[in-house]
């Protein structure tokens, strides 16, 4: 009662619109919680700062500002001074050419602006705003494509921000806030998070998904095949399990290892990047189908891709007609970059000969061209092999042997410099399909064999409904060489290095024999979380017989609202209607006596004392008497004792220890 204080100042009288008084703008924040606020800001922004080029400068700047802000709120001239310094840093950074993309500039500006809030922590409301900014920390980590552990780690700043809010709300309501790690802050925080989780997951499944971007831009998930290739560029695709295409074969599916999905044929090399020739003359060199040709017909549904190339099973004979076909390189191009999934029917024959009769001069020249002044060591090596007498098929086999004995497969090879082939062959000696196909093609050209790089996908996995699914991490690159009498022959130097491709990083199968449960769980989690997309959602809804978009939205919204209502009603009821903790503890105590002292169900405290007088040692009996006396005072005279619940619990425990059951 002594805490009762009545606040009334002239300042308060001014604030009087319709809403309840906004205490958060009246109550000053105290030192502890100013430290907590600016600490949360620093915690959530500094780790992301390091993802920027020269990020440590921003990290230091943010740390300084947060320390200044934790010390005390700052007047306008100081803030303007810091703003000036920020502008100077930003301009120097931008015009020094450090940022690689406009998003990095935006991120830098955002982070500097956010940490500015640390310098104006005057009222509780400022602390609230700072905490809202902390909620963005995992989002920034996601935008910057940080690994999953960084995203999960940054989620701790959400917990910190919630505890901060709890403390600020205490200050705002005029009660003592205590220390930031006090139980009164972390308990509601943990409660809120536990309560949030189930509904958040349901919402995750039900929230309407879009099969294509509705605000423009590319999907981060659909890295997809690009129009060009340079060693290391597929790096991101190996992390991406999203679907590239689904194929249903008419008849038996071909051997998995022979499934080469051909997208782009790249013949132009500038020393670093492989790119395609402009579209060649149509209809001249198409492989000829004879009655003896074994063909595979199938239907392919291609997901939206950033590239115009449409992947088909190598070598395609005819397609459903939609994409423009470049018969010169046997690639298929759709007229526009597809934003929706498209389905084509096609007929392919893996082993059909192509340009068996000879290569046109133009094609020969185009596929032998090498950039001047690159990779001298490789040129010398190939020259040595030529002098040793290797040519045509022997040269191809010898080069493959060389790869097999000198190279190792790695998803995380070192970056390559200017003479990329030299560095790979003589220096780093590790890489993945792109490195090998690029170097191999270079060597073949150096040896006078027409060669080119082909990119696309390799293999896939069978689905439950007897289709084949090709995912983005199935992306692959290989080579084609032209050998007289054989025409274009596919050569895959990657499989000279490894017999089978290792699983991409993060997708390694656990030991199925030892941990079947772990494997099952990780399978399910990727099914229901990692790879959940609009297609999976549509399947989910159609399994519930909801096809119409409007019904879908209605059902989703309705379900979320009903769930939320049910959960929140449970929460309310739980706290509001249960009997007071003192009553609960007293009843438990009475139950113990009921069992051990043969008392009636409705024994009063006095009866309880009388019954236990003989059974308990005097000291314990007097303790019990004190507790029961306090309980009576609490129950009937409304006298509060803060420790009553705890003492009732203790009394019960000691009774259980010292009372022997009565015969």
């Amino acid at each position, binding site marked *: *009662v002594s805490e009762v204080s*009545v*606040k*009334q100042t002239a300042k308060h*009288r001014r*604030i*009087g619109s*319709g809403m309840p*008084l*906004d205490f*958060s703008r009246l109550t000053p924040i105290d030192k502890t919680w100013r430290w907590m606020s600016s600490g949360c800001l620093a915690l959530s922004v500094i780790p992301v700062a390091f993802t920027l080029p020269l990020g440590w400068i921003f990290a230091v700047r943010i740390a300084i500002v947060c320390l200044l802000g934790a010390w005390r709120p700052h007047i306008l001239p100081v803030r303007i001074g810091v703003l000036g310094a920020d502008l100077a840093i930003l301009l120097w950074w931008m015009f020094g050419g450090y940022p690689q993309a406009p998003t990095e500039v935006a991120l830098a500006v955002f982070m500097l602006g956010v940490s500015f809030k640390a310098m104006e922590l005057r009222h*509780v*409301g400022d602390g*609230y705003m700072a*905490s*809202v900014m902390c*909620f*963005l920390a*995992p*989002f920034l980590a*996601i*935008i910057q494509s940080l690994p*999953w552990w960084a*995203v999960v780690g940054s989620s701790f700043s959400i917990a910190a921000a919630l505890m901060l*809010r*709890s403390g600020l*709300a*205490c200050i*705002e*309501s005029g*009660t003592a806030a205590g220390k930031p790690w006090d139980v009164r802050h972390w308990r*509601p925080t943990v409660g*809120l998070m536990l*309560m*949030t989780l189930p509904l*958040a997951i349901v*919402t995750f499944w039900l929230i309407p*998904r*879009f099969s294509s*971007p*509705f605000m423009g*831009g*590319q*999907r981060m*998930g*659909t890295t997809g095949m690009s129009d060009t290739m340079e060693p290391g560029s597929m790096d991101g695709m190996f992390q991406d399990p*999203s679907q590239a295409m689904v194929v249903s074969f008419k008849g038996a599916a071909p051997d998995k290892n022979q499934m080469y999905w051909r997208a782009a044929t790249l013949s132009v090399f500038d020393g670093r990047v492989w790119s395609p020739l402009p579209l060649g003359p149509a209809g001249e060199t198409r492989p000829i189908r004879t009655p003896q040709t074994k063909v595979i017909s199938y239907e392919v549904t291609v997901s939206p891709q950033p590239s115009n190339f449409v992947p088909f099973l190598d070598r395609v004979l005819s397609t459903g007609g939609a994409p423009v076909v470049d018969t010169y390189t046997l690639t298929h191009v759709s007229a526009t970059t597809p934003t929706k999934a498209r389905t084509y029917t096609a007929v392919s024959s893996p082993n059909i000969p192509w340009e068996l009769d000879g290569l046109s001069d133009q094609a020969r020249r185009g596929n032998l061209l090498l950039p001047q002044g690159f990779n001298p060591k490789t040129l010398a090596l190939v020259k040595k092999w030529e002098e040793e007498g290797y040519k045509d098929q022997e040269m191809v086999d010898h080069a493959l042997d060389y790869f097999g004995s000198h190279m190792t497969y790695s998803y995380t090879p070192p970056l390559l410099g200017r003479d990329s082939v030299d560095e790979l062959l003589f220096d780093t000696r590790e890489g993945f399909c792109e490195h090998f196909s690029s170097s191999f093609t270079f060597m073949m050209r150096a040896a006078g064999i027409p060669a080119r790089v082909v990119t696309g996908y390799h293999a896939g996995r069978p689905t439950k409904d007897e289709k084949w699914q090709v995912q983005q991490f199935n992306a692959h690159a290989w080579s084609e060489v032209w050998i007289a009498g054989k025409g274009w022959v596919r050569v895959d130097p990657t499989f000279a290095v490894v017999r089978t491709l290792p699983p991409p990083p993060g997708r390694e199968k656990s030991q199925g024999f030892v941990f079947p449960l772990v494997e099952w769980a990780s399978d399910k989690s990727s099914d229901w*979380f990692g790879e959940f*997309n*609009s297609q999976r959602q549509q399947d989910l809804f159609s399994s519930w017989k909801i096809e119409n978009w409007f019904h879908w939205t209605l059902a989703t919204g309705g379900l979320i609202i009903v769930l*939320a209502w049910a959960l*929140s009603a449970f*929460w*309310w009821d739980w*706290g*509001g209607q*249960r009997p*007071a903790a003192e009553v609960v503890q007293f009843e438990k105590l009475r139950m113990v006596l009921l069992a051990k002292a043969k008392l009636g169900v409705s024994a009063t405290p006095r009866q309880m004392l009388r019954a236990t007088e003989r059974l308990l040692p005097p000291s314990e009996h007097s303790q019990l008497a004190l507790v029961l006396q306090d309980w009576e005072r*609490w129950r009937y005279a409304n*006298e509060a004792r803060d420790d009553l619940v705890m003492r009732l619990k203790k009394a019960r425990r000691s009774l259980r220890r010292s009372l022997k059951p009565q015969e």
Partner: protein
Amino acid sequence: MSPPPSLGGPRPGWHRFWKPASPQTFPARSSVMSIFAFPNRSGIAWLLVCVVVLAWSLNASNNAGVLLGCALAVAWFYAGLMPAGRLMGLSLLGVSSESSFEGSTAVLRLRFKSRRRPDGLMVEFANSFAPIVFSGDTGQALLSVPTTSRGIYAWPVIRVTTRRPFGVSSSWVRFWPSGDVVVWPVAEKTDIPCPGRNGELISNLDGSKRQTTSKAEEWSHLREYRRGDRWRDIDWKRVARTGEYWVRQFDHQPGGKVEINWQATEGLPLETRVRRLAKWLADAERAGQQSLLVLPHKTLGPDFGISHRSACLTALAEVPSE
């Protein structure tokens, strides 16, 4: 009969679409339908963060982002409902108010009961607010409201608000206690004495003189001490003996009688008349005289003591203003 004037109207605003239909009897319980919640500034900012995260993630089909956005949105929803949960089951047990003089603050005392003993509840009325301090199941709040003019006021609609535990939304419930708040007039600052029947004090007509000391033998009975009693009336011997405070009560006030008549202030403005009567009343009290208050609607006394004074001041507060 016109409704009693109120201490101040509800603050204007679109949100005031609910209040109790009539003053409530005690105990007044808060029902689910009477609890409101509205996000505050940082709550709206939090919602904006959810919208940004969800829009970007759904556009880019980024599952981690979608899960984060959903979690933030659901947490916002629950954190916004939690203060409303704290107001569930709150009931107003009773109210009381001490009479106060116009221009000073009226202290309104409210007693609440809630099984969950929520801390961080505020009672608000107009621009005044005070925390409810719980001790056990019951809590009380002392709300001081500034007053400007005398009168008998109906209890205002008061609002109990909270932002705990996360400060995302303000939640509130309104109570309208039945009862009155009395605001007495202040005494006029003047030296004009109270005229008697013929321009003289009634005490002089009686012929008795005002005694400066009271004789112990003259008291008729004793009663327990109440705040405001004169120290010289305390029976100190009994205090020394028993440790309890008893006050001597007299059959008649030794200082004589005075008649305070509404008619005597004819011609003055209404508020001045009321304040002058209040001044004469205070003079009589100070001089130890019995007073007779004659008002157009009421006659009180002749009597003396704190209850008589309160009755007189309340009768003066009741005088209809124009």
